[in-house]
C-alpha cells in the first residue's frame, strides 16, 4: 500500500505535466472546434455545433490543402522509406569486421547529417539549390525550371527536400532491423546459391516487415501533422495555395486570421485523419 502511494506520488508531476500540456489543450481544442471564437470581433465563445465542420467540408482551400497534404505525405514517406531501405541494405552488405568496416562507419556518419541539420538551415540550402538562375540543379540540367515558383513543380520540390531530410530516420531503423536478423539465415541462403536480391526478397523483407509498418505509420503521422517548417521556408504555402499544407492552413486560421474555432476544427480533422491512418497501418503490420 505504501509502495503504491509512493509510486503514485512520484509519477504525479509527470501526470500533471501531461494533463496541462496535452490532455487539457486537446480537450479544449475539441470544445473550441464546435464554437465560434474570433477574438478580433468578439470575446464571446459561442457554441455553434457542427457549423465549423460543415464549413471545412465546403471550403475549397481546406479540401485542396487536405489533398496536397495527403499527396505530400504519401510521396515523401514512400521516397524516404524506399531510399532508406536500399541504403540500409547496401550498408548491411559492408562487413563491419573487415578492412571496409571503417568505410561503413564513415558512410553511416554522412547519412545521418541530413537528420542532424536543423530544418530551417536545410530549407535555406534547398532554396539555393532550387534557385532558377543561380541554383546548382538548373546548372546541372542546363535548364531554367522554376522549382519553387511554378505550381507544377513546387510540391514535388518540397517532397524531395523533405525526403532528403528525413530519410536517415528510415535508414537507421531498417539497418538495425537487418542487423538483428541471425546471420545463419544468410549463410544458409548462400549455401543454397541465393543472390543479394534473394536475400533481400526472401530473408530481409519478411523479417523487417513489421518494422516497416511501424516506421511508416510513425512517419506518416509525423509528415501529415508536422510538415510546417520546410514548406514555410521554401514556399510559404505558395504560389497561390499550391503548397499550402494543412499545418500551414491551421497556422493561418489561428495566428493570422485569429479564427480559433475554424482553426480548432481543422486541427481536430488533422488529428483524426492521421490517427486513423496510423492505426490502420499498425493493425495491418501487427496482423502480418
Amino acid at each position: 500500500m505504501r509502495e503504491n502511494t509512493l509510486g503514485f506520488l512520484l509519477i504525479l508531476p509527470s501526470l500533471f505535466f501531461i494533463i496541462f500540456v496535452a490532455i487539457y489543450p486537446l480537450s479544449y481544442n475539441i470544445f473550441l472546434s464546435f464554437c465560434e471564437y474570433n477574438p478580433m470581433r468578439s470575446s464571446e465563445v459561442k457554441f455553434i455545433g457542427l457549423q465549423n465542420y460543415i464549413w471545412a467540408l465546403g471550403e475549397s482551400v481546406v479540401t485542396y490543402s487536405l489533398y496536397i497534404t495527403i499527396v505530400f505525405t504519401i510521396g515523401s514517406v514512400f521516397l524516404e522509406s524506399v531510399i532508406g531501405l536500399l541504403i540500409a541494405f547496401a550498408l548491411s552488405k559492408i562487413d563491419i569486421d573487415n578492412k571496409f568496416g571503417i568505410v561503413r562507419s564513415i558512410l553511416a556518419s554522412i547519412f545521418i547529417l541530413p537528420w542532424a541539420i536543423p530544418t530551417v538551415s536545410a530549407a535555406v540550402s534547398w532554396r539555393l539549390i532550387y534557385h532558377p538562375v543561380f541554383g546548382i540543379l538548373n546548372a546541372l540540367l542546363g535548364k531554367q525550371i522554376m522549382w519553387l515558383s511554378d505550381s507544377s513543380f513546387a510540391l514535388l520540390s518540397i517532397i524531395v527536400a523533405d525526403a532528403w531530410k528525413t530519410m536517415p530516420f528510415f535508414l537507421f531503423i531498417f539497418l538495425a532491423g537487418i542487423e538483428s536478423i541471425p546471420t545463419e539465415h544468410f549463410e544458409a541462403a548462400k549455401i543454397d546459391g541465393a543472390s543479394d536480391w534473394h536475400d533481400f526478397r526472401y530473408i530481409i523483407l519478411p523479417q523487417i516487415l513489421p518494422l516497416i509498418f511501424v516506421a511508416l505509420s510513425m512517419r506518416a503521422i509525423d509528415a501529415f501533422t508536422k510538415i510546417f517548417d520546410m514548406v514555410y521556408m521554401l514556399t510559404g504555402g505558395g504560389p497561390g495555395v499550391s503548397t499550402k499544407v494543412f499545418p500551414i492552413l491551421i497556422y493561418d486560421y489561428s495566428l493570422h486570421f485569429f479564427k480559433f474555432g475554424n482553426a480548432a476544427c481543422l486541427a481536430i480533422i488533422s488529428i483524426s485523419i492521421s490517427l486513423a491512418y496510423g492505426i490502420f497501418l499498425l493493425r495491418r503490420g501487427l496482423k502480418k
Partner: protein
Amino acid sequence: MSEPKKVDRRNFLYIGLGAVTLIAIGAAAYIAMNPPVVTQTSVVTSTVSTTVPTTSVITTTRPGAPVVRVLHVAGPEAEHIRACQTDFEKATGLTLSLEIAPRDVVDERMYRELVEGLGAYDVVMGWAGMMYATLMATEGYIPIDNFMSSKELEPFYAKNNYTWNGHVVGIPQYHNWNMLFYRKDLLESPKEREAFKAKYGRELSVPKTFKELYEVAEFFHRPPDMYGYLITGVEWSWFCDDVYFMHGMSTNVGDKQGNLTLNTPEMIKAWKYMLDMTKFSPPGWESMTFFDGDNLFLQGKLFMYNNWFYIWNDLRSKMPDKAAMAPPPGDVKPGADLSGWIAVIPKNAPSPENGAKFIKWLGSYDYQKRHVLEVGNMPSRSDVFDDPDVKAKVAGLDMFKAVLPHAEVVWCTWVPELRSGKYEAFFKVVKGEMTVEQSLKWLQETKFAGRRAIEAKR
C-alpha cells in the same frame, strides 16, 4: 524494553518532495510578482550632430526611474528609436525598454496585447497602414486623444485614416508610401525614345496611367538582360502590388458604409492590369518580394518597379545617373498606399501615462524631423515638411508632397484573411482555373459571402 524505532527513509523522501514543491511554487510566485528590471548597456551610434558617425557606450539603467515598455517590429524604424534612446530618456525622465519583434511574430504579440489584454507593454507599434482599420476595430487601446489635445493633434495630416468612432487612436512614427522607380538613363536615351515613338506613336515618358505603364514595360522587357516590371508573388508582398493597382483605380476593398467591394468594375480592371504586368516580370516572380526587386534593380536587370520609398536613398547613392523616382501610376489617381508604424497604448498597459509620454515624444517636431533626415521616411506631421533642413536635404520632397494627398489605407478590419483570400483568387487566374471576373465574383459571393469590409467588435 521496547525496540528502538526504525527510521523510515520514505518519510524523508515525502518531506523532501514536499519541500521542493513548496520552494518551486514560492519562487514562481515571487518572480510573477516582481518581474526583473532589465539592465541595459547599449552601444549607440549617432549620426545627427556630427559629420562622422560616433559610437558611444551609454549605460541606460536608472535605478528607480519609471520604465516605458515598447513593442516594435524589426526594421530601420525600430533601430532608429534605439538610436534615439538617450534623447528620449533625457527629454522625459523615463527609461525605455524597447522590445523588437521579428515581422513574422509581431502579429501574435500585437494580438495578445490588444485583444487578450496581456498588459506587457505600454506602447505597441507593429502594424502598418494596411492594418490600421484591423487595429482600430480591436478597440483594445486607449485613444491617444485622451492624452493629447486637439491642438496638439492638429499637425497630423492623415489622422482621418486612424480615427475610429471619433477618436484618434494613436500616432504614426512616420508615413511612407510607394513610388515608381525607373531607369532614367534608358528613358532619356535618344535612341530608345526614337524606337519607342516608332512603335507606339507617342513620346516615351514616365508612365502615368496603367496603359502607359504596360507600354513602357513591354518596350523595355528584354529578357534575360532586363525585365520590364516586377509583380511580386510572395503573399504579403503581392498584396502591396495589389493595393497599388487598386488605389490607382480609386477603389478599395470596402466602401464608406463598410460593405465589401471586391467584385467591382474598377477592381476587375485593376487585376487585369496587374495580370498583364506579370508578363514582364522575371521568371520566378511568384516567389519574389519587393526586396528581390531592389536587388534586381540595383543589378540593372529591372527597368522599373513600384516600391516603398525607403529604397530611394540607396538607389540615389548607388545608381546616381541611372535611378529616378516618379509618382506611382494610376488610371484615376496615383496608386499610393499610405503606411507607417502607428504607436498605440493598449488598454491594459501597465502605465498608460508613460506610454502617452513616449507617443508624444514620437510625434514631436524634433523627433519627426530627425526621423526624416536619418531614416528617409516622411513625417506624420505636416509642419516638418516646411523645415529648412528637411527642404534642403530631402531629395524629391516636392514629389512626395504631390503624391501624399492621394495616399490611402486599405479599408477592412480583417486584412490578413482578406489578403489570403485575394491571393488565392489571383493565383486561380494565373493558373488559368478562372477568369478575373469569375475569380472576383467567387471571392465576393462565395468565399466571403455575407462578410462586410468593416466588421466592428460585438
